């Protein structure tokens, strides 16, 4: 039985090899020559961009993008963070539950419009969408090969592309785009501090919240420290071309280790500072604001949630 299966596999796997060896030779030649061309292309690009641009990128990287303060002022920014959070969660779950890719267009467009309305940077908005889409790409590609109705076949490999697969792939892509847009909008119009503050209203345990607040406070400090340590190594040629890859990775790791040691020392001092001001560890570190929600804000929140539900019902074909 096993032999039979493996025979079938072999015949498909090595068909092109057994049939005509020139195929394999040509493919190999093409692959490696283009490998070289591709690499040179990348090097050329890097040279063009120049060292200064790279350094600039490093400087920018040193500052955590979390720390950037959203521009305040628009109505959307002043809206109660808790309601924004609830709306976003409901909307994200709604987007995930969509079954028709057409309907995902609505949240995507609404989000872009709102970002423009809030006068936030569209460039950083779209930049943040890139990563989720790249993850979704592989999933979507795999889905192409699932289904029952064959619409095309990839030559040589004999893989079939199915119509159901194409539909599902598009749906996943649409869902990811919609959900990522909504989260993106939320972070664009809400400062992280306010967002975290609102979490206490959702009964998140104080231990987690305290840790979160402390972490958020020190991420920028640690990030600057990392940039400093890295610069110190870079200035002594730790990352130039002459350094081997293994050595370079080791240097990166050493920066990480130094960062952890420094953070540990700082943590001991922070702990001392807490204890010296009477902290005993029995209660939570911070008090969280418990403002009352404005009635107008609640009304708008209800409308948004209803809109999401309506969209879902329409998607399911009930309305």
């Amino acid at each position, binding site marked *: 039985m096993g032999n039979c299966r493996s025979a079938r596999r072999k015949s498909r796997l090595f068909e092109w090899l057994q049939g005509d060896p020139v195929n394999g030779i040509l493919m190999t030649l093409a692959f490696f020559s283009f490998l070289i061309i591709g690499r040179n292309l990348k090097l050329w690009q890097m040279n063009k961009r120049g060292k200064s641009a790279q350094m600039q990128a490093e400087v920018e990287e040193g500052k955590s993008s979390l720390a950037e303060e959203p521009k305040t002022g628009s109505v959307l920014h002043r809206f109660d963070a808790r309601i924004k959070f609830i709306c976003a969660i409901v909307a994200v779950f709604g987007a995930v539950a969509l079954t028709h890719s057409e309907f995902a267009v609505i949240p995507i467009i609404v989000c872009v419009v709102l970002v423009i309305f809030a006068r936030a940077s569209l460039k950083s908005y779209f930049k943040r969408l890139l990563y989720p889409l790249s993850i979704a790409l592989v999933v979507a590609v795999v889905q192409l090969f699932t289904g029952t109705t064959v619409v095309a076949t990839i030559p040589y490999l004999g893989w079939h592309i199915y119509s159901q697969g194409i539909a599902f792939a598009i749906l996943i892509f649409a869902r990811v785009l919609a959900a990522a847009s909504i989260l993106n909008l939320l972070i664009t119009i809400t400062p992280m501090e306010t967002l975290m503050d609102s979490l206490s209203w959702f009964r998140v345990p104080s231990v987690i919240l305290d840790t979160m607040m402390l972490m958020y406070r020190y991420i920028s400090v640690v990030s600057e420290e990392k940039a400093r340590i890295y610069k110190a190594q870079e200035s002594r040629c730790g990352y130039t071309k002459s350094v081997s890859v293994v050595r370079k990775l*080791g240097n990166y790791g050493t920066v990480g280790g130094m960062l952890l040691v420094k953070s540990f020392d700082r943590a001991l001092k922070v702990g001392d500072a807490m204890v010296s001001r009477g902290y005993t560890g029995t209660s939570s570190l911070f008090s969280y604001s418990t403002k009352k929600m404005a009635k107008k804000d609640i009304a708008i929140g209800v409308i948004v949630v209803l809109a999401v539900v309506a969209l879902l019902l329409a998607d399911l074909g009930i309305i």
Partner: protein
Amino acid sequence: MHIADGILTWQWSIAWYIVALFFVAIGARKIAQTRKANPAYMSILALMGAAVFVISVWHIPVAFAGTSSHPNGTALAAIIIGPLATAAITSIVLFFQAFLGHGGITSLGANLISLGVVGGFVGISIYMLLKKLGASVWLAAGVAGFVGDLSTYACTALQLAVSLNPTSIGQHWEIYMLGYLPTQIPLAILEFAFTAAAVQYIQVHRPEILTWWRGIPAIAGAPTVSSKPSEPKLSNPKRHRIDRFTKYVLITMTLMVAIMLVSTYVGVNVFGGKMGGTDSSVASGGFSFLTHYTMVDEYVVFTIGGAAGGLVVGYLLPSVFGQLSKRKEEKQTV
């Protein structure tokens, strides 16, 4: 690897959330208990968490892959703050990352399981195990990072397969793993080097950081005590140590087995397998190369053959190497 919002179905998102909440709850409880015993624990946890976060969003160019990628840092986190606290910290890190475009809100539960729980626990177990076996700290940490990263990625692929292709989980598991292979192998190597170097640095300069979470001082204000750099401790002579030769043989063996497994996976299942997920006539995944040798006799023969070969070579080796080293000594004396 973070799953974005919208990839998993909503039913599975919620299911993973429930599993994840369980681990976060245990982690939070443990933090609360330790905080009571030592108020300064919070600051250490948060600062280490912040450092791990900074490391996890640090884009490191990986030359041989032509791209940059960032280490997960969960194995590293588990080694320095313990696996349970890692689960709690990872939930926070993922929350932050969700708003930076990595991962998402609905997939937070699933990501927490793959990164914080599987990655963390596998990482720390490998680290502990290798240290028990006598491996040096950097090696144990590096392998923990490597395996922790791979297990995270296997877990993510499984989550995708279970949610998206429930009819042929095993097969799609392999497909997803292969799909992300080009990004994950460099990442795992990066993780190996990074974790090894970082832990080695800490071991040399401040070894107490690696063990503090296992015995946190229970007196208020006591942590100042540990802020004094202590002398690096000499290795305990009682601990069982294996010699260099055995270590290298073990490493080589692991590597070879890993290569064989990966190649079998690629060779047998990608090109030969049928891709249709809904076709139930295809046997689901696993190491189907085993079907080539269904006869038990064959296993026995191969095992005995291998054992005999190893015995003979192992027997001959010391004499050959012994002669070599003797010759060296003679040369030196001459």
